[in-house]
């Protein structure tokens, strides 16, 4: 085998998350009352547009979740197959050009020369101070000042055409499918999509997909020869960092809630359903946790983990595993601080539901508590769970950045937007200023959080029974 798969803790949880989502999708598809709100989501234009953007992020995040070790070219004396010590992901492999093409230090986006002057040996033996050429960025140009603009334009155009071709193929495939599904000719379906007359706003979906694909290909073409977003202090490509950070952001946003979801649902429903001392204990628990300022709790736990790790350094095989465990822990502790809100909501809802006639009737008929909870209470609070999940997501992505910034977030060696901002914080004070790291982190984060916020609004409108029929 040319590679050996590596499953980190967070990877395993992502696969679990995917499985749960798939199961839920199958389940929801069979039940009309669950399918109806989702139908409302995909019929809203903002809903499909944000879904396209979020899917693009999710694809990158998933590519970055498939980890493995590559086989080394040379086997050792005993002929045993050896694997490289570093853990790579599919995304690393795709972006191996970006990952390996390191410069010496800062360089601006699309630059051909370094950002700082250095002493250069001239062919005639003299030494002058000037900006040296980059080793990789625009290295193929003979006369950068003259050729660069043309080269960039040409490559961008190639990317544009490639993106358009792929988009056209996808669109044609979609129209063909729809045409076959509805038993209508291809042209009719195409015209209806163009005029925006379909129930699912395919025009919006395709309209969002086009810039996403074109941008991907344009950047892809350019990134082959340039540092599109420049390089950072140690010469690493900023575009690569920003793309790698996507996984971190997504994981914090999704795993955190996934980890604490069982506790929040279990405790919330138990408190509301059983009342009495169970309610008292659970209320005490979440009031106590709630009274501790969240950041302090997170800080204390992360400090604790750091001490543990430095005392037991030998238990962690590699830096990646170490960083991964810390990420998992961060998700856990963020979950601990955020489950209380959901728990309280669920308690209130369960209190209300247990008084409803059909629950009372079930109780009178002698149905067991757990059957009642599973059959009547749980399905009726799922919309609250779902709304809370999507609403919390963007907040958690933002929280990660702030926490990493004060060094109580993800491991400093891990790519994350918070770490990017943290290492770039003083670069604005340089002269000339280095703005690209900050701008890249801002751009990637903003797009994700904005899409998530808009999507959350659509989901809430679709699932909140109070807003139904408005």
């Amino acid at each position, binding site marked *: 085998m040319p590679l050996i798969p590596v499953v980190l803790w967070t990877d395993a949880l992502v696969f679990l998350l995917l499985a749960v989502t798939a199961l839920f999708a199958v389940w929801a598809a069979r039940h009309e009352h669950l399918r109806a709100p989702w139908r409302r989501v995909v019929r809203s234009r903002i809903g499909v547009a944000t879904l396209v953007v979020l899917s693009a992020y999710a694809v990158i995040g998933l590519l970055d979740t498939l980890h493995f070790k590559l086989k080394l070219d040379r086997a050792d004396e005993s002929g045993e197959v050896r694997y490289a010590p570093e853990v790579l992901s599919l995304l690393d492999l795709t972006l191996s050009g970006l990952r390996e093409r390191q410069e010496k230090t800062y360089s601006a986006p699309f630059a051909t020369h370094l950002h700082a002057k250095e002493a250069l040996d001239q062919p005639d033996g003299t030494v002058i101070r000037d900006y040296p050429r980059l080793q990789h960025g625009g290295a193929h140009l003979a006369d950068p000042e003259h050729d660069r603009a043309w080269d960039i334009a040409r490559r961008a155009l190639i990317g544009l055409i490639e993106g358009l071709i792929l988009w056209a193929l996808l669109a044609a495939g979609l129209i063909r499918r729809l045409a076959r599904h509805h038993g209508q000719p291809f042209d009719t379906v195409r015209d209806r999509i163009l005029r925006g007359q379909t129930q699912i706003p395919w025009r919006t979906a395709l309209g969002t997909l086009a810039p996403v694909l074109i941008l991907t290909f344009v950047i892809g073409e350019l990134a082959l020869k340039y540092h599109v977003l420049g390089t950072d202090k140690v010469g690493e490509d900023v575009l690569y960092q920003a793309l790698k950070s996507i996984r971190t952001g997504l994981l914090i946003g999704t795993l955190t809630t996934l980890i604490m979801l069982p506790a929040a649902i279990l405790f919330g429903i138990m408190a509301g359903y059983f009342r009495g001392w169970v309610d008292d204990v659970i209320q*005490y628990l979440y009031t*106590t946790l709630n009274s*501790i*300022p969240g950041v*302090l709790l997170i800080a*204390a736990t992360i400090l*604790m983990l750091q001490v543990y790790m430095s005392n037991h350094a030998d238990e962690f095989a590699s830096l990646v595993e170490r960083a991964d465990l810390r990420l998992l822990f961060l998700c856990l502790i963020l979950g601990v601080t955020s489950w209380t809100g959901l728990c309280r909501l669920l308690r209130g809802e369960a209190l209300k539901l247990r008084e409803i006639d059909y629950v009372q009737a079930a109780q009178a008929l002698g149905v067991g508590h757990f059957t009642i909870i599973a059959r009547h209470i749980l399905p009726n609070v799922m919309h609250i769970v779902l709304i809370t999940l999507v609403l919390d997501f963007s907040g958690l992505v933002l929280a990660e950045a*702030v926490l990493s910034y004060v060094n109580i977030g993800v491991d400093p060696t891990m790519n994350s937007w918070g770490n990017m901002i943290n290492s770039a914080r003083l670069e604005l004070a340089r002269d000339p200023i280095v703005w690209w790291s900050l701008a890249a982190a801002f751009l990637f984060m903003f797009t994700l959080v904005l899409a998530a*916020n808009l999507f959350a609004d659509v989901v809430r409108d679709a699932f909140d029974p109070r807003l139904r029929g408005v």
Partner: protein
Amino acid sequence: MTAYIVRRLLYAIPILIGVNLLTFMLFFVVNSPDDMARMHLGQKRVTEEAIRSWKAERGYDRPLLYNAEAEGLASLTETILFQKSVKLFVFQFGSSDDGRDIGYDISQRMWPSLAIAVPVLLIGLAFNISYALFIVFFRATYVDLGSVVLLVAMMSISGLFYIIGGQFLIGKLWHLVPISGYDQGLNAWKFLILPVIVGVVAGIGSGTRWYRTLFLEEIGRDYVRTARAKGLSERVVLFRHVLRNALIPILTGVVVVLPLLFMGSLITESFFGIPGLGSYTIDAISNQDFAIVRAMVFLGAVLYILGLILTDISYTLVDPRVRLQ
């Protein structure tokens, strides 16, 4: 009502004990007092003797939870947990690991925190409510749509970028105010303007959006329809009826954060170099100063509970239908 307040205050005691136990456990599950001493004395040249005297000086030479050597009740009281916890309940915070009086530090550092938090709260409240009313007045027009898009965009920006952007634009580019630092007394104003502006701007997105939803919900009520039916102008309906009735949720949101204002903001204060309680806590966290962290956690919990009680009381003041039992 007095009985209610007393009962709520009594309820606070088990919660505070829980908070205390939790922070204690969090810290000492992996960190022993020996580790703390080693860290403070520096890893390398540490003798057993130095560790012992460091621990004795700061009262960490007792067992953590249970003292087997002492007799009777003393086996529980002669422990680090008891010695370090009980005084917190009478707000005796003791001294930090580097020997400073925590109570004095807190009393000094709460003023800069308040100097930022109070203006941010008041200006933010005034701005957000007026903007929300403005949007609601022009609801279902392009003003509404455009504003909502703007607000969602604003709340999608990380707070860090507001701070970095504010410092860069106002401080570095325009040279209007110093980027960070602090001064005694009234001279502090020029150091405070920037953090206050940044704080207000960063809160506009989510704040205004929340008030907008609130007003829109209120505007759908029956009494508003009645008021319109009787011929009142939109302006009167909005300001005299909707605003007044929306006051309750606004008030609860405000009252609950009032006590917490003392704690300051960790991020803002450390970014702007303001010597408030937020930066105090951040420094303590990075120095692993357990005494300070515990004191701040305890203080935070007390203020939080206080905020909840205040909220309940404020309910009765604005809404005569609410009675506390």
